């Protein structure tokens, strides 16, 4: 296929050709980045939690009026919950992964440090690790005898005593890696602020924070051996029994103490669902925009293609009369579109890179992976060819006799 005649025709339609090129370039740039954003969001939505996701239930209550003995009440609640058939583990906890409200601490490696090395979240509650179903990588999980009560720990802290304070901690592998790169964290000491030294006795694979400010620090969590009586329970059940267990749990908790409000009663899947709601809607929006952009661009190509074909009817007729086959005409328009798309894609790639740089600066996005360039190019070539096919077929159908007619 000769390219020279196509180029010389395009030179006569510089502005129109330039517009098609620009449209393809912009579409290419925006769609590449939007698809990249979508994959980022999807990765985020599937962020590992490190817990037994499909086996957990969260119940949060609040007292009406005064509670004389929170300790006794918590023990009764836990015993009653444990007695429900299907329940495998229960814990009274201070917060839950992806639960949004969180208790965090600055962690130092040396108490004399000015600023903490990392900020990590504090999970409290006897049996919390076992109930969440975290995956142990090294050392051990916390056992009942390790625990002190949060109230007593607070009191001890106030009086400056070390007796009654927690002394050990279980941390996640990403956090261990950040604090002690390349070494085993087991047996090492980390400082809660400048006052409380904690020895690392266990490392778990992952345990996501309740609220995430920085995705790179999403797994910076600690489990401290402190008992809490906050009226918040985490229940683990045999898979597939959660709805029944949840209903039964509400029943027994109501029976234990009717003067309480349930402010939360949900399965952990709902927790995750809710946490990523906004990411999901943004993903939907981005996909919608990509589709709309591609459709608009394709329609633009169809529209212009049709015009060009109509404009060049006589020219086509003359070529046909001089011996060009239908295939020649078809390929002429296809090649023309391919040329325009290629220039557009080349400019689009540069633009895509520029937009990506802008997003990296303003939205802390990573660099666009190189694979997007060939895939993006291929997609636009295909769309261009599909869009021009209709007009090109119509062009190929022009009979040679047109050449002999005046208009």
């Amino acid at each position: 296929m000769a390219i020279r005649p196509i180029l010389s025709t395009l030179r006569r339609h510089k502005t129109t050709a330039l517009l098609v090129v620009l449209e393809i370039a912009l579409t290419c740039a925006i769609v590449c980045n939007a698809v990249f954003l979508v994959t980022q969001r999807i990765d985020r939505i599937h962020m590992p939690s490190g817990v037994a996701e499909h086996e957990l239930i969260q119940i949060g209550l609040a007292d009406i009026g005064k509670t004389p003995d929170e300790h006794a009440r918590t023990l009764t609640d836990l015993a009653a919950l444990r007695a429900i058939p299907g329940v495998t583990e229960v814990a009274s906890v201070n917060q839950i992964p992806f639960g949004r409200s969180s208790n965090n601490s600055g962690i130092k490696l040396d108490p004399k440090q000015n600023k903490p090395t990392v900020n990590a979240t504090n999970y409290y509650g006897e049996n919390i690790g076992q109930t969440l179903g975290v995956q142990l990588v090294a050392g051990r999980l916390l056992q009942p005898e390790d625990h002190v009560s949060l109230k007593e720990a607070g009191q001890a802290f106030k009086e400056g005593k070390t007796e009654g304070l927690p002394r050990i901690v279980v941390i996640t592998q990403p956090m261990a890696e950040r604090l002690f790169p390349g070494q085993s964290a087991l047996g090492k000491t980390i400082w809660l602020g400048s006052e409380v030294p904690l020895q690392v006795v266990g490392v778990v694979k992952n345990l996501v924070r309740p609220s995430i400010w920085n995705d790179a620090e999403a797994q910076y969590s600690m489990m401290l051996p402190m008992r809490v009586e906050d009226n918040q329970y985490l229940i683990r059940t045999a898979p597939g029994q959660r709805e029944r267990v949840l209903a039964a749990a509400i029943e027994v908790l109501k029976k234990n103490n009717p003067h309480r409000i349930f402010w939360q009663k949900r399965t952990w899947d709902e927790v995750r669902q809710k946490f990523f709601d906004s990411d999901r809607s943004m993903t939907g929006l981005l996909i919608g925009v990509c589709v709309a952009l591609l459709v608009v661009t394709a329609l633009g190509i169809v529209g212009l293609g049709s015009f060009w074909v109509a404009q060049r009817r006589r020219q086509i007729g003359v070529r046909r009369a001089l011996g060009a086959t239908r295939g020649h005409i078809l390929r002429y328009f296809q090649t023309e579109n391919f040329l325009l798309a290629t220039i557009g894609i080349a400019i689009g790639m540069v633009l895509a890179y520029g937009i990506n740089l802008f997003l990296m600066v303003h939205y802390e996005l990573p660099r666009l992976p190189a694979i997007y360039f060939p895939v993006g190019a291929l997609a636009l070539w295909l769309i261009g060819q599909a869009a021009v096919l209709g007009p090109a077929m119509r062009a190929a159908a022009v009979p040679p006799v047109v050449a002999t007619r005046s208009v």
Partner: protein
Amino acid sequence: MFGYYLDLALRSLRRNMVLTALMVLAIAVGIGASMTTLTVMHLLSGDPLPGRSDKLFYAQVDDNLSAGDYKEPLDKQGYQSTIDLWNARQADRQAIVVESPVKLRAPQTTLPPLMLSMLSTTADFFPMFDVPFRYGAPWRAEDDASRARVAVISSDLNDKLFGGADSVGRTLRLRDTDVRIVGVLGRWRPSPQFYTVAGGRFAAGKTADFYSKPQDIFTPFSSALEFNDGNFYQYTCSQPPATPGHLQNAPCAWLGLWVQLNSPDRAAAYKRFLDGYAAQQQGRILRPQNTRLRSLMEWLDFQGVVPSDVRLQTWLAFGFLAICLFNTIGLLLAKFLRRGGEIGVRRALGASRGAIFCQCLVEAGMIGLVGGLGGLLLTLLGLGLVRRQPVAFADMVHLDARMFALTFVLAIVTSLLAGFLPALRASRVAPGLQLKTL
């Protein structure tokens, strides 16, 4: 003349319906997308208190007890500093704000108890932030001093508990304490909920929750400290509080202080007062140079309250509009140039270049007008979709008169912009050449 152009434009548009529809659709979709995001952006980045926001300031001294080279004070303050500054009464109006969860029962109703978010503040809060009242009035400064058990409730809560009737004088039970309702708010939906904004600068743009509805119940700060003791949350603590939720004597930052300063001189004087106070408290306050007095809008800007997703969507929508624009330019160009013969005849019969240019622009403008109408419908649809999104600001998304007008302005400007180049090219058509080929 204009009527004639309009007639020509209509004929021309009718000649190729598919193409016309394509152009109208491109403009409509572009306008719809940009106006939807622009409306959301306009709602979220606007001034929550137009006309007064420049007199309102967020006062800060640095209660951060960690040693180190911190350039900014914490976003909230400790009890000691806040109370000292409040008691000094150096501002024209001043309000302490703190939010806490509270259990509520309405003894006269059969409704189950509720867990609500309560704002505890001081009497000036209401006049200072221009809060509308439906029934009753704010509590008075004496109530703050005497720790009166009074409350102001939102109209939503009033509808829920009392079916919208005047509930002033009725009693609510907050935790274990009876409080008397003194006022019911009217519709009040500041965007964002500016008076509690803090920590936004660390949120990496995930700030949609700053646009939540105001709290349902407002109580005097002094009395809430008593009846809701143990339920207060810290913004941050340098050491864990001895009694969780009781923060008066703990090394914690948890309170915000807003002041109204009616003139720039008063603001400058208040800043000097803050500096003086921090310097005097050196020792307890580690970095006395870290005082700030940001105006309301400066504070919102510093906290970066507009969610980054919304910004991103706005960029995206305008990229989209640009593509639609290129599309329309290309199609119009092809369309006008194809009519070279017709234009040549008109030129030969005496039409000036200007006349041809105007005629083509009228045609482009008509596409813009119809596209604008379509864009308006799509904007309404888009805003409807935003309202169904799980975000805190969903309920207040609407198209106001200004944005309504802007939709059409944007549509016409876009299509005139799109029509400019094609019209220019069309008006340059050499009549002789065209006539020869006829």
